[in-house]
């Protein structure tokens, strides 16, 4: 079987045992942190509420976005609807050029990774600094995020210590507080010097024209208040109607993402501050479609209800094994395997839906109750319908279905399979090596011995009293 790009990426990640170990440990720790207790509010009730809020938001999306845009403008902000990533980056680059921006600080934002905003700004000659510690580490290392909440989760403290020593010339340390302090000292200067701050958005509030940004480091607050221009980039689905709804979403988000009952910093930005010393002079919201309307029209529409808590990544045995980089996409893990084929096309990315055992652990932990396995299965049907399966599997499945719909053919097929397998038996009866696609099986485990008689044969003999 020819190896696909995905297979090669996965093989590369599996070969890096240190990285695999770090990812597994971090995933397990985050899974354990997840708050499932009923402290302050019963989690089951919150989840049900959160699901209904997100599903209703998707239903009312055009209405909510219109309302939100009106309210942002009413409060002195500007709103730009970007059909795709290029439109979004061009708008932001043009704005930066018009305002003579030379340096930009950024808060953590997955959608800006999706539209590759940093590249566009740097190509236009601007300096861009990531201020979330994880993102800052990746920027120095020249890597992409491997996790939607903990972007550098694949790097241990020791890895970061070595990186800071090599790239920043700092004395080596693996003490987290010292690493934090070093980064803080560097970043503080950047905030003060920046002309433009760019952040993402966890949820927008339509009736208030407000953008909510959750974080734990305070970098989001500085990014959204220190520079004179603030640009918020948000996926078009990231919206609810009012503050009550937002409070439910922010609560399940923190519980599921980081095991907090609420994020340390909840920044709420509403237009340009009037009569205040602090805050930006300009407030721009860029609302990005980039394939979301297509997803909304399809069978996996509910995936847009995702609040990007990352709980499904942490609990996924495949993510734990191959890490985010194995997927090769911005959005990784189970949720990414649904989102990425939706945004980037099933043609090229549908194969991701096969990087799952459909074990259902993701759906179990999802605070929105998204039916991730069902959606993965649906994308699999799309890849099959588009003819993207290996030839042996297509032929095999046809033959299998044909035999299974005729009990006589079925019994004959069982007989042939038994005979063939019989030739390959080893001493203990188990098969050590199968030919063709069966090689995948015997690559890592033995195959059970063929049986002299099937159950139906034994039953037939018992039934007729032959002994």
């Amino acid at each position, binding site marked *: 079987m020819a190896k696909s790009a995905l297979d090669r990426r*996965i*093989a590369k990640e*599996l070969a890096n045992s240190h990285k*695999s170990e770090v990812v597994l440990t971090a995933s*397990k720790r985050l899974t354990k942190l997840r708050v499932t207790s009923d402290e302050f509010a019963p989690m089951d009730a919150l989840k049900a509420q959160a699901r209904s809020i997100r599903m209703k938001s998707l239903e009312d999306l055009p209405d909510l976005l219109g309302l939100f845009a009106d309210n942002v403008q009413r409060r002195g902000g500007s709103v730009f609807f970007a059909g795709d990533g290029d439109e979004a980056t061009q708008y932001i680059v043009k704005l930066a050029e018009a305002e003579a921006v030379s340096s930009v600080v950024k808060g953590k934002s997955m959608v800006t990774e999706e539209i590759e905003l940093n590249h566009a700004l740097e190509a236009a000659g601007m300096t861009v600094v990531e201020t979330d510690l994880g993102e800052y580490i990746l920027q120095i290392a020249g890597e992409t995020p491997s996790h939607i909440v903990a972007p550098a989760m694949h790097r241990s403290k020791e890895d970061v210590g070595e990186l800071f020593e090599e790239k920043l010339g700092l004395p080596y340390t693996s003490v987290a507080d010292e690493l934090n302090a070093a980064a803080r000292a560097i970043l503080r200067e950047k905030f003060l010097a920046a002309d433009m701050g760019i952040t993402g958005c966890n949820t927008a509030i339509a009736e208030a024209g407000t953008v909510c940004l959750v974080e734990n480091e305070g970098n989001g607050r500085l990014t959204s208040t220190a520079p004179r221009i603030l640009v918020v980039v948000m996926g078009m689905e990231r919206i609810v109607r009012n503050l009550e709804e937002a409070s439910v979403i922010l609560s399940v988000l923190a519980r599921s993402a980081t095991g907090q009952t609420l994020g340390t910093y909840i920044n709420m930005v509403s237009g340009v501050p009037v009569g205040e010393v602090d805050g930006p002079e300009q407030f721009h919201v860029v609302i990005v479609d980039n394939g979301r309307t297509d997803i909304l029209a399809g069978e996996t529409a509910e995936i847009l209800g995702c609040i990007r808590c990352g709980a499904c990544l942490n609990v996924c*045995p*495949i993510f734990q*094994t191959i890490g985010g980089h194995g997927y090769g996409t911005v959005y990784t893990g189970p949720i990414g395997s649904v989102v990425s084929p939706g945004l980037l096309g099933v043609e090229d990315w549908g194969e991701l839906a*096969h*990087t*799952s*055992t*459909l*074990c*259902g*652990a993701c*759906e*179990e932990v999802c605070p929105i109750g998204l039916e991730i396995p069902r959606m993965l299965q649906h994308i*699999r*049907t*799309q890849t*099959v319908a588009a003819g993207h*399966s290996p030839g042996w599997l297509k032929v095999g*499945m*046809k033959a*299998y*279905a*044909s*035999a*299974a*719909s005729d*009990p006589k053919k*079925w019994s004959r097929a069982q007989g042939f399979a038994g005979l063939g397998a019989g030739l390959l038996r080893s001493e203990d009866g*188990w098969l050590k090596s199968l030919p063709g*696609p*069966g*090689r*995948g*099986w015997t*690559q*890592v*485990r*033995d*195959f*059970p011995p*063929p*049986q002299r*008689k*099937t*159950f*139906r*044969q*034994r*039953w*037939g*003999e*018992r*039934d007729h009293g*032959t*002994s």
Partner: protein
Amino acid sequence: MKAGAACISRKRWPSLADSEVPIPAQATPVQLFVTCLVDTLAPQIGEATVAVLEQAGCLVAFPSGQTCCGQPAFNAGFNDEAVVMARHTIDVLDATEGPIVVPSGSCGDMIVHHIPELLADDVAYAARANAVSKRTRELTQFLVDDIESPARVRSEESVAYHPSCHGLRNLDLGTQPEVLLGDIRRADLGDEAEVCCGFGGMFAIKQAAVSGELLTRKLDAIDASGAGVVCGGDLGCLMHLEGGARRRGMDVSFNHIAELIETEGT
């Protein structure tokens, strides 16, 4: 015999004993959907299932037209093929009566949930698929919830239970296997207990290396637990685990829960 016709037996397996099993006067008739894997690769699990059901007072029938429920095709995204197998399965099972018992959480999940979804827009099949779905029970569910069987697992060695994902999460099989395991000595798989073993049907072949990593994790946990026996409710996971254990030379037995439930003659 035409598809769907049932052959009801009152006889024991000739190899086990020659006397007839006494069937209680009010025997519950049940249809055994044995699953294609058990039929082909582990007929002894099918026999153990029959023994357990008969001991519990059931009159077991084996609808001889049954083949495969279509789960492997459905799982892999081959819906056209899955529909063919789903229709055949409904033809066979809808022609019978009484509870349908399946010694597998995965196949049970297919018949209970996915076949009705697959055939929802099929006028000739939708209602029948729903009727079959309502009659279908995974083995431990049937024994514990439906007929409250007093039968329990017997084992001299400590037993690690491996809950298969589809049974655990899609059929909610949490308590039933526990009831059957009763108070035997248990081996604890700790954090790994409810983590997927990495089988996943075609996944085991298409993503063999990743599947192998998960297999290693699970086998390490089994090793550390000191289990002498690993017990599960799905042959797919069990053959994946046993195949890996043999490759490593581990001295552990792998059994379907039906094989461990004490019956006359075991």
